[in-house]
């Protein structure tokens, strides 16, 4: 069985807030659900499948189904950090293909900026079997991505300036997004002269920390046929867990080496066919490695590939993250997979900002990287087409 053509992304919504003082996590989930259903032209009572991840408060789907007043016959709370929502889109398509639901709702909400529940949904890392062998060295999100950048530089000669081009491209796009946290265009010089926060990454190699959320509504073809919005069809997906493999460590690649080929094979397309990509951009190195691993360039040549504006819409060959991405726009709940799918749908609908809309955008890819690039992470690739 395949999910190719079995489901459509009918509704999207990105919460406009970037700082949600005085609003509960549950309410943000409800607000984005309402927004995505309105976008699709559907109602709450149409929903018969519900998907959420570790950011959902309380008992996850049990609490949220109650709060939202849903009556799902299918639920999925797959938790793979920021990549969860890319996986949810694929799992929703699987569930629809299997006849388990017809209207699937996926929600995300997070408040790391104003101080809500911690990222990770309150899971206790002390439960993890690696905890006693890693925690004493104080690993952080930041240094566990930086350590990958260091090794990539060593093996392939990648430079700080090449990494900086990823941020430059994101900032070129963010200037057109009124909701973006960082709207100022930056230069390579500004990125590499910003303070080193964890060698070799600079402050401007890092994404923003923002509150907010987002939602998707994914529907069966017969539902999509009744709706008025431009149609976006899911045609392929892949998912993978990458880790340190019992100590046989290689942090020069991500799980995209597995999730990418699976998604391309299912979709029956190749990287050169893709018109637009949403690539998880927790840090500049995340984008560079992911593009290599998905096959958009040869392994080790990501630095050259992203340089000189190649990721800027209207300038380069592979426009990416035209909303400004996590690097400049929004990284709600420290979980960027949701906004990656949302901007890809905007592009396929032709509803991105006119200054960054990719011409004739009929095929797009969204990729999520959740967790820690330098130890263990989830990779999820989703390929969509304009129907």
């Amino acid at each position, binding site marked *: 069985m395949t999910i190719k053509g079995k489901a459509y992304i009918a509704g999207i919504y990105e919460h406009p807030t970037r700082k949600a003082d005085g609003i509960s996590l549950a309410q943000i989930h409800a607000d984005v659900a309402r927004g995505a259903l309105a976008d699709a032209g559907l109602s709450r009572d149409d929903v018969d499948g519900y998907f959420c991840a570790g950011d959902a408060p309380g008992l996850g789907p049990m609490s949220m189904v109650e709060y939202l007043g849903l009556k799902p016959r299918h639920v999925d709370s797959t938790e793979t950090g920021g990549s969860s929502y890319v996986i949810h889109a694929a799992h929703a398509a699987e569930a629809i293909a299997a006849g388990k639901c017809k209207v699937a709702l996926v929600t995300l909400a997070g408040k790391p900026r104003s101080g809500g529940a911690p990222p990770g949904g309150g899971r206790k890392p002390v439960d993890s079997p690696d*905890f006693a062998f890693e925690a004493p*060295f104080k690993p952080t999100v930041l240094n566990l991505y930086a350590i990958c950048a260091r090794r990539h530089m060593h093996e392939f000669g990648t430079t700080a300036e090449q990494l900086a081009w990823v941020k430059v491209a994101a900032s070129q796009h963010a200037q057109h997004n009124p909701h973006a946290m960082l709207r100022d265009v930056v230069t390579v010089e500004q990125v590499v002269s910003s303070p080193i926060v*964890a060698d070799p990454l600079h402050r401007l190699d890092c994404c923003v920390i923002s509150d907010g959320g987002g939602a998707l509504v994914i529907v069966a073809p017969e539902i999509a046929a009744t709706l008025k919005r431009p149609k976006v069809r899911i045609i392929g997906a892949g998912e993978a867990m990458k880790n340190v493999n*019992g100590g046989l460590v290689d942090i020069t690649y991500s799980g995209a080496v597995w999730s990418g080929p699976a998604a391309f094979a299912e979709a029956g397309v190749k990287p050169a066919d893709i018109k637009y990509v949403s690539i998880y951009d927790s840090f500049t190195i995340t984008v560079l490695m992911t593009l290599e691993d998905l096959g958009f360039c040869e392994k080790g040549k990501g630095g050259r590939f992203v340089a000189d504006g190649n990721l800027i819409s209207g300038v380069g060959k592979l426009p990416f993250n035209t909303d400004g991405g996590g690097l400049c726009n929004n990284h709600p709940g420290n979980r960027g997979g949701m906004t990656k799918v949302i901007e890809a749908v905007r592009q396929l609908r032709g509803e991105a900002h006119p200054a960054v809309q990719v011409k004739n955008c009929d095929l797009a890819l969204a990729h999520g990287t959740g967790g820690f690039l330098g130890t263990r992470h989830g990779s999820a690739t989703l390929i969509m087409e304009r129907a």
Partner: protein
Amino acid sequence: MADKKTGTPVADIALQPYWDAAARGKLLIKHCQACGRNHYYPRPLCPHCFSDKTEWLETSGEGTIYSWSVERRASPPYSIAYVTLPEGVSLLTSIVDCDFDNLSVGQKVTLAFEQRDGQPTPVFRPV
């Protein structure tokens, strides 16, 4: 395993030889008699072949920096690194007693132990 409230290690019979050796300044990894491969962090079942025929292997204490970073915002700043052992596995660790500005991939380091979070913890220092 670790206590859910305090984060401190609690008894795990399978790992007791590791902690006993660490207290004596020795770093143990696991060797699998079935597939011949080593692994770290140690587990009763080999993550490579899933055999339960694993045994403890004492490491030489030598190592090479595979990659590293320094958390510059911390006070004081600290290093985090992967060090590759001659026994074939790499482990997450810290490089101590060093000038952070002179760390490099491929640098030779040697094992030391520090008491961290109430447990003897393997760290490395430049040779």
